[in-house]
């Protein structure tokens, strides 16, 4: 019987077994990485809006407080998207003739709401309440990132469950004094390792990780 395989087949067979296992493992790893990538989570992605509203300008340059527009963030589950009238508080005079702002004026004139596209869109099976997080010393920045530096708003974090749990399990790493909630670029006065546990105690932060906390 002549040889069916070349001498090199010996090495090749062993390499292909190891290589195949590595390939399968690598592919599985890639799929898992893909699941956490911004391709799936939609983090750091600009979204086309009816008006390209710039938080960089309004928050960063003008120093307008978050609550000026998101009025219900302290009292309700929902932070609130401002009605067109809030825009018109200022834009009745500033840029009043700008064609860029025509959709805003049209909305105000015709009493038709602007249709903003949701950027931070939690799945509908998740219950999230802004007010309790504000009350317990969670800064806007912790979840929404440096909004004052975003020309167009984007989702700064993955909003995946492990991200939620990361804070619910270690609130002391993220808590800040209530007076600093709306501060952008907050730096703790003393080390977070000291301040965090103090605030957790003071604010009585007891984040639950049972299923029904968020899936209710």
């Amino acid at each position, binding site marked *: *019987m002549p040889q*069916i395989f070349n001498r090199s087949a010996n090495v090749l*067979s062993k390499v292909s077994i190891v290589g195949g296992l590595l390939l399968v493992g690598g592919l599985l790893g890639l799929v*898992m990485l893909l*699941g956490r990538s911004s391709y799936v989570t939609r983090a750091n992605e600009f979204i086309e809006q009816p008006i390209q509203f710039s938080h960089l300008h309004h928050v960063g340059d003008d120093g307008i407080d978050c609550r000026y527009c998101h009025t219900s963030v302290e009292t309700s589950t929902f932070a609130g998207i401002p009605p067109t009238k809030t825009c018109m508080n200022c834009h009745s005079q500033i840029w009043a003739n700008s064609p860029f702002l025509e959709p805003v004026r049209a909305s105000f004139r015709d009493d038709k709401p602007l249709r903003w596209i949701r950027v931070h869109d939690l799945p509908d099976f998740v219950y999230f309440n802004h007010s309790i997080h504000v009350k317990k010393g969670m800064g806007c920045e912790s979840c929404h990132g440096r909004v004052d530096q975003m020309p167009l708003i984007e989702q700064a974090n993955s909003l995946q*469950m*492990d991200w939620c749990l990361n804070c619910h399990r270690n609130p002391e790493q993220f808590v800040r004094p209530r007076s600093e909630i709306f501060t952008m670029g907050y730096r703790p006065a003393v080390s977070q390792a000291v301040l965090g546990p103090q605030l957790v105690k003071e604010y009585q932060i007891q984040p639950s990780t049972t299923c029904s906390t968020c899936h209710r």
Partner: protein
Amino acid sequence: MAEALDHPHDPLAGMSTDGLRTPAVIAPGHDFNSVTDKIAGIVLTKRTPIGWFFGFAIAFAFLLLLNLTIGKLLLEGIGIWGNNVPVGWAFDIINFVWWIGIGHAGTLISAILLLFRQQWRTSINRFAEAMTLFAVACAAMFPLLHTGRPWLAIYWLFPYPNSMTLWPQFRSPLIWDVFAVSTYGTVSLLFWFTGLVPDLATLRDRAESPVARKIFGVFALGWRGSARHWHRYEMAYLLLAGISTPLVLSVHTIVSFDFAVSVLPGWHATIFPPYFVAGAIYSGFAMVMTLAVPLRKFYHLEDFITMRHIHNMTKVMLVTGMIVAYGYVNEAFFAWYSANPYEGYMMLNRMTGPYAVFYWSLILINALMIQLFWFRRVRDNVALLFVLSLFVNVGMWLERFIIIVTSLHRDFLPSSWDIYTPTRWDFAMFTGTIGLFLSLFFLFIRFLPALAMFEMRTIVPEAKLQGDHH
């Protein structure tokens, strides 16, 4: 294996001497060459029998039906099935348990009978193991697909670091099931492939087409029959058999926990693990019989799958069937003895309720019909045994149907009582998996040696050493 060599005085080994009463495990007159020629010929022939194409076409049609059903299921969701409150588990778990049960015979034959040095396992173990693999594949479809979107359900099936940092709930019998069935499938595959390697080497050495030689050569791993290799090979085979034996018992035990761990009349019973394991072996042997009878007829394998095998399989079915029947008696006895009104009603409902006809059918088949196996004339009638084995398959399916549906459809609250009606898609899915099973089996007997050639060689007289080399 080498029992013939190890134990020349084993009464079951080698040629039978008492002629008529106990048929031999292999017909006389065979040697290494004739055995190899016959079995390898089925695979290496250039002419595929027309009957094979005919059978495969039918099986493949049902496989296509399965594909259609799965496509429909993934697009529309499991609402196309008849499952609904209160019968939330229906065809999916019935068929799952049925297929897993069938799968048990393969490992039992190849592992437990090996440990007991039963030589009659040799000519049926290969295709019984293949049957196990295909049955497990069919079984696994149901729990996977009943999640609707299996790719989203992986996180509670398998432990891996996911983006939810969630882990499977290890306190749940359903997760035990996942581990039991996946381990069972994996170990069966390793066992089966290990057994195939020396035969693949034979096919490699006998094949004429260079492509076939390459393909068989790749999978034969360069097996050359070295004594050093055989030495470790035998050890590995024995160890795998030893490992598989408790495994095969654990799998259906764990499947029975799916029910027994819950608190529902008709399910919450300590008899379930042994009762399920016996039922699994019973239905598995019935399926081996269902496959073996046409296989030996069609390929003229009467020399290898002899009346000895047929008789022994029938006897195993008789014994395990009686254990199952004992289980039925036991369920009825405890329904009465527990004095629990729910248990009592469950039993009464089984016997006289809307599904009573199925209950009495399964009693008729699994408790009464098998008593025919006591008679030698029945055991000698191969055609009759084929029909009876089909009945056993049906009977065991009905058993699972009764256990699942009658326990669920009469809920604790009479307001939620309902009748379960399977839809056409339920039947399409079920018959589709039968199509998958048979398609795989047809491919297997065409492209791989359906009987273990190297093990068959060990039981021909030529394999016996004459001299005393010790």
